[in-house]
């Protein structure tokens, strides 16, 4: 019998294997790689092995010992690969400027001179403990919190303490905040439009219901890019909306609807509305038909019946719809890029900039990690809340 059960388990495993494999190869693995690149920093430790081991005897405050300096020179001599050396210089220079000129000069001198090489005599910058500290941080560990801190507009100061970056140096925190506030605005707009709509759709039957649901579903079958482009046309100064308003005499000059926050929120609300309407509708459709008559027979005015019976019962759909809309909105990229202005870009566009524009995979991964963590935290909060609702006697 155990054999039979084993076989069933193998069969079911074989059935899910393609999906599992797909998820691992195309989702989990890239995700993991990105996350890893956010915290990995192996270059200095790999290229400067002798320096790394000599670092253990140094307290980071006193001037570096002769042994450490000698180890560093030895390491420099051994570097043959120019590209590897370039990576090392870029890594060190990103922490403290000056390395870009200092390092090639020192490498050339180290290759030509015999032992020992007096580094301070070669360049007096080597007397500055700050440079040695940067090398110390970079070479002592293969992982770093530099990117993660930078993603939150933080950095480490000379003493290694976490501190805020100077204002103006980075705007990640502001953009993250903007991303959350825009996603929230879209979610609220979706609730305000989607809840009444779903209620109407659930209260009618036959072709009317089909028509209403079709109106929501139709956009889902159109490409996101096409829908966004359509809004681009509609929202322009001489687009359909503005020309209609002016034709009706409601405004004398075009409203600013594009390249600003309003336009982005309008377009994103439209795109994400189905994710609100469908869960709410399915919850409403599952509510027994006789609850509202029952409430009326017990003396509830229609408004009271709505507030005490229908609304609380539809709340479960509203919450899952909101979660769906909010989380999708957090990652929006195309719509803000096409319809928004420079001040309406969300965190995805910053991630895209680091990934494709600046080729800084570490920063792209770090920002992605921050976004993912924030989203997961929200999800945990949601699970907690919904679990409490279920558990309530």
């Amino acid at each position, binding site marked *: 019998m155990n054999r039979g059960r084993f076989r069933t388990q193998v069969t079911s495993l074989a059935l899910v294997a393609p999906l599992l494999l797909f998820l691992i190869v195309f989702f989990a693995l890239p995700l993991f790689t990105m996350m890893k690149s956010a915290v990995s920093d192996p270059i200095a430790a790999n290229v400067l092995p002798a320096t790394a081991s000599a670092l253990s005897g140094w307290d980071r405050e006193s001037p570096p010992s002769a042994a450490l300096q000698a180890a560093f020179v030895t390491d420099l001599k051994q570097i043959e690969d120019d590209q590897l050396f370039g990576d090392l210089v870029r890594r060190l220079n990103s922490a403290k400027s000056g390395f870009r000129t200092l390092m090639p000069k020192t490498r050339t001198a180290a290759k030509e001179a015999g032992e020992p090489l007096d580094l301070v005599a070669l360049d007096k910058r080597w007397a500055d403990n700050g440079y040695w500290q940067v090398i110390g941080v970079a070479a002592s560990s293969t992982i770093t919190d530099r990117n993660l801190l930078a993603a939150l507009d933080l950095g480490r100061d000379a003493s290694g303490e976490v501190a805020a970056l100077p204002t103006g140096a980075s705007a990640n925190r502001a953009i993250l905040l903007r991303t959350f506030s825009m996603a929230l605005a879209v979610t609220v707009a979706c609730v305000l439009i989607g809840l009444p709509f779903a209620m109407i759709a659930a209260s009618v039957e036959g072709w009317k219901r089909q028509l209403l649901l079709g109106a929501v579903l139709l956009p889902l079958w159109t490409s996101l890019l096409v829908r966004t482009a359509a809004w681009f046309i509609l929202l322009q100064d001489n687009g359909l909306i503005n020309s209609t308003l002016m034709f009706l005499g409601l405004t004398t000059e075009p409203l600013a609807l594009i390249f600003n926050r309003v336009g982005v929120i309008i377009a994103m609300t439209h795109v994400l509305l189905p994710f609100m309407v469908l869960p709410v509708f399915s919850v409403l459709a599952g509510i027994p038909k006789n609850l509202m008559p029952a409430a009326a027979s*017990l003396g509830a005015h229609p408004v009271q019946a709505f507030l005490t019976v229908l609304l609380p019962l539809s709340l479960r759909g509203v919450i899952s719809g909101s979660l769906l809309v909010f989380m999708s909105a957090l990652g929006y990229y195309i719509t803000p890029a096409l319809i928004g202005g420079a001040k309406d870009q969300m965190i995805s566009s910053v991630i895209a900039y680091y990934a494709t524009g600046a080729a800084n995979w570490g920063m792209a991964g770090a920002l992605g990690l921050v976004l993912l963590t924030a989203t997961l935290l929200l999800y945990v909060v949601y699970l907690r809340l919904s679990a409490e609702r279920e558990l309530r006697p």
Partner: protein
Amino acid sequence: MADSFIRFKDVSKSFGALTVVEGLNLDIEQGEFISLLGPSGSGKTTILMMLAGFESPTTGAVWARGKRIDLLPPHKRNMGVVFQNYALFPHMTVSENVAFPLRMRRLGRAETADRVTRALDMVQLGSFADRRPSQLSGGQQQRVALARALIFEPEVVLMDEPLGALDKQLREQMQLDIRALHRRLGLTVVFVTHDQTEALTMSDRIAVFNHGKVEQTGSPAEIYDHPSTRFVAEFIGETNLVRGSVETVEGTTGRIRLENGGTLSVEASGRLHAGKDVCLSIRPERVTLGTGPDNSFSARISDVVYHGDHLRLLVQGNEQSFIIKTDRSRRPPSVGDNIMISFLPTDCWVIDA
């Protein structure tokens, strides 16, 4: 205008071309338990819905306590409704459900709590106050629905097949419970059902419906013993229908010539006159085995059905089949036996053919 507690006056209801209720005139007295009985589609639920205010009559009017109510919205009618599937609010606890009508009437917190406790005790659910409806059995949910419909002391309680979803034993228990509550609280109950046994056991009065019209109203005994139409005779319980025409009427005895040539004596009422086509209803339990003073026939047993407390015999005699309900005190007859059957003229109920 009306003297009765509730009065339906010439009420009709159509949905498009479909007429569901036609020319209904029905009076309901205060404190009575009336059942609206009929097969599905006979319009009985629609009548209840018109009384509760969820449907409005196409023509005619509904009166309660001398006031016209058919234009009043449901929440102003003060009628407790118990729905077929209980219609409890799933997001509220049992006590919140029961307190709902009082909350809608803005009663004080202390009085509400007090009345909820009493209402739950009345239906023996005091210890379930904090449960959700989904954590209760069907019978318990039904009792919550009952408590909720009674707590605001409505003038009328309307019940739409409330016991339909329960199993037989529980249903019979609930029938007794509801009857006891009705008697104890002096409620007026309008009870819709398609189960004739339920209607017979619970009601003070039954209105039998067919195709949107009242076939007959009367006490359970009247309906059972003296059905006024063939439909009522066949729908309520089991019966033997015999067709024939009146041959002679002599004093209190009428002679009926049957279609198969035989004759029967019946107790004559004023309605009988020679030559009239009639239909006779003879209840199976009124037919006795053996020869009697009148109306004796020989017949052959074609089937015997065992029912535990009684036997049901299917007999064939002279082109007429009969169902006979007999107790088991005698030696059980067997299939193929030739026997004599008889019944009294007073047990032949004459219906217009």
